[in-house]
């Protein structure tokens, strides 16, 4: 009986502590952090690193969105854009992705369904780029963890450069230069892995094509 009253008394104290903590940690703390991030220099990051062209939000440099070219519907080789990695958030093997949910396929390396998907993707990419299927790199045929990976490997970007140059009427060397410009190496030379940002690269291609 005595231990029960003790438990009840402690639970009552627990409720009071929890309410105070909720105000402190659930309201004041996040709002204080939010307030500080209103400062110039932090604000753009806090609101999603949005890239604007003439006031129009064109995308986030952090989020990979696979662009759709209506011309490519019947003829994939007529596609004007660099493409992101496949996303597990779509049923179609090569996108376009749905950007609202995030997540990966959760398929295991020994899963035969995944093997089939990988081979289908390899075939589709090779046909679109008119190259040998063996030259398609691993990141082009696998879905990322987020489904929103903005980066592709340099190899996958190089593979797409010829088609993008042709379909946009830009010199191939110019497109290759743009790929190089939008390639990010390892931070400090050691952190993470190199990659090409598809979102900003496509915007640069669009700008170049309009000239």
């Amino acid at each position: 009986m005595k231990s029960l009253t003790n438990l009840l008394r402690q639970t009552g104290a627990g409720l009071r502590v929890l309410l105070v903590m909720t105000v402190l940690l659930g309201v004041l703390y996040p709002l204080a952090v939010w307030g500080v991030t209103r400062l110039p220099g932090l604000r753009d990051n806090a609101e999603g690193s949005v890239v604007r062209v003439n006031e129009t939000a064109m995308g986030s440099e952090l989020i990979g969105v696979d662009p759709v070219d209506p011309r490519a519907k019947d003829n994939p080789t007529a596609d004007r854009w660099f493409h992101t990695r496949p996303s597990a958030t779509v049923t179609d093997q090569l996108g376009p992705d749905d950007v609202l949910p995030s997540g990966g396929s959760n398929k295991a390396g020994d899963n035969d369904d995944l093997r089939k998907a990988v081979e289908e993707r390899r075939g589709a990419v090779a046909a679109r780029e008119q190259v040998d299927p063996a030259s398609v790199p691993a990141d082009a045929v696998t879905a990322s963890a987020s489904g929103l990976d903005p980066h592709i490997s340099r190899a996958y970007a190089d593979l797409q450069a010829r088609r993008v140059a042709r379909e946009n009427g830009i010199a191939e060397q110019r497109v290759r230069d743009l790929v190089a410009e939008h390639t990010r190496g390892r931070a400090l030379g050691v952190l993470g892995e190199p990659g090409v940002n598809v979102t900003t690269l496509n915007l640069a291609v669009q700008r170049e094509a309009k000239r």
Partner: protein
Amino acid sequence: MSPTLAGLAQVGLLVVALAVCYRPLGDHMARVYTTDRHWKVERALYRLVRVNPDSEQRWTTYAAGVLGFSFVSIVLLYLLQRLQPLLPLDLGRGAVEPGIAFNTAVSFVTNTNWQSYSPEAVLGHTVQMAGLTVQNFVSAAVGMAVAVALVRGFVRARTDRLGNFWVDLTRGVTRVLLPIAFVAAIVLVALGAVMSLAKGVQITGVDGVQRTLALAPAASQEVIKELGTNGGGIFNANSAHPFENPNAWTNLFEIFLILLIPVALTRTLGSMVGDRKQGYVLLSVMGLLWAALLSVAWWAESHPNGVASLAAGAAMEGKEVRFGIPSTALFAVSTTGTSTGAVNGTHDSLTGLGGGVTLLNMLLGEVAPGGVGAGLYGILVMAVIAVFLAGLMVGRTPEYLGKKLGRREVTAAAIAMLAMPTVVLLGTGVALLLPSTTGALNNPGAHGLSEVLYAYASTGNNNGSAFGGLTVTSDFFQSTLGVAMLLGRFLPILAVLALAGSLAQQRKVPATAGTLPTGSPLFAGMLLGTVVLVAALTFLPALALGPIAEALA
């Protein structure tokens, strides 16, 4: 630079950063939990909640505080989710279903942060902040309080008092977690993470198609998610989502935050017991396990053997290009060696061996270096067992940190040690008996079994990461995984507090020639052997049917 060298340099940077913070943070925490001075704001808080901060508690009262506080936390978090439509910033996401709401409430209160829901679709900003962020802090502070109570059991003599739970809880928040989290959140935004109260931002792509990208107050929750070894993402993809973890810098920073407190707590132990070597011994065991498992996972991810990985040419399914293989392996081993469970890649898509390493890391009892607080009391329990085994071998009464380990102490330690394996094996066994489980699997063969084992290992250890392909929305999984989280959290906590209470009552025994020196490399080896042996004896059959079978196929 070759990927391997770059990866090694990255690990080196991480270790240096942790080493720099080890002393100042460890000693700071020792002072936080030993000083009798209260801050003014803390006094005001104690007055407001009507607790006397200077009255010390017996272990039973301390435990009643832990249980009572956790109980009201579950109730409040459940209600917040169920009443979501009445809250501001609910983003029109409606009331959360009862099954998900129960599972999520238990999950965040037990420091598990297992997620059976997709946050972008289910939760508004208020539940995230006022519900989940709060539990991210306090569940971590509870873990630290329990660990400190156990250390006091060793330090104190001939008393039945272990300290005041409300004071320990409050100080853990005000003096450790909150200041670090606040600074870290600003740093994370400066490095690129999102912190927005908007629902989303509308974009018009190069193709002219309009889409909406979901936004959230991510940074403030992200940092405490790592610092408090919680792990529940504000987005479904967790730390793989570019808004939570945008680049290699944030990735390393988040791994650093995950390991920071569990590592520094070994220094706190050394300071509090007045023998730093005791802390170094525990740290060396944690570090060895972490390094060994990291090496295996890294090698495995670089040498995949599954048909799909071979067809693709590399194990890049479920990994982000900006992290690649080394940074994904580093995150995976750090998150499963602590009770974090945040992920920057999908663990379900790790190779057979790589996924097996993350599973084993949890099944070792999460002591490499373990959750905030939970890691320290976990390894102390294993140390008690190791000393006891050594005592049996040479026929002496075992002693640890100046206390005799009698029947009561060893029984409590054994209960704390055996609770998790019991929960994991029973849960997995029952789930595998049910025909409906086959339909919940996302992968065939041995990997399917691993998915179920991983689910109970993760919840039983309060980790929260998942082989996410398993469909856990059925009532069976929601409820049994919820129970696994509760038992996996509170059985060990009760046993540890009982152990602390029993130790505190003893007088100190001076070390003699017959005392096993526990500050030596020899004891570190024994402790390492005990941790590995206990896990191997318990889980080898299950591991053989799952990840080992997959790795050898």
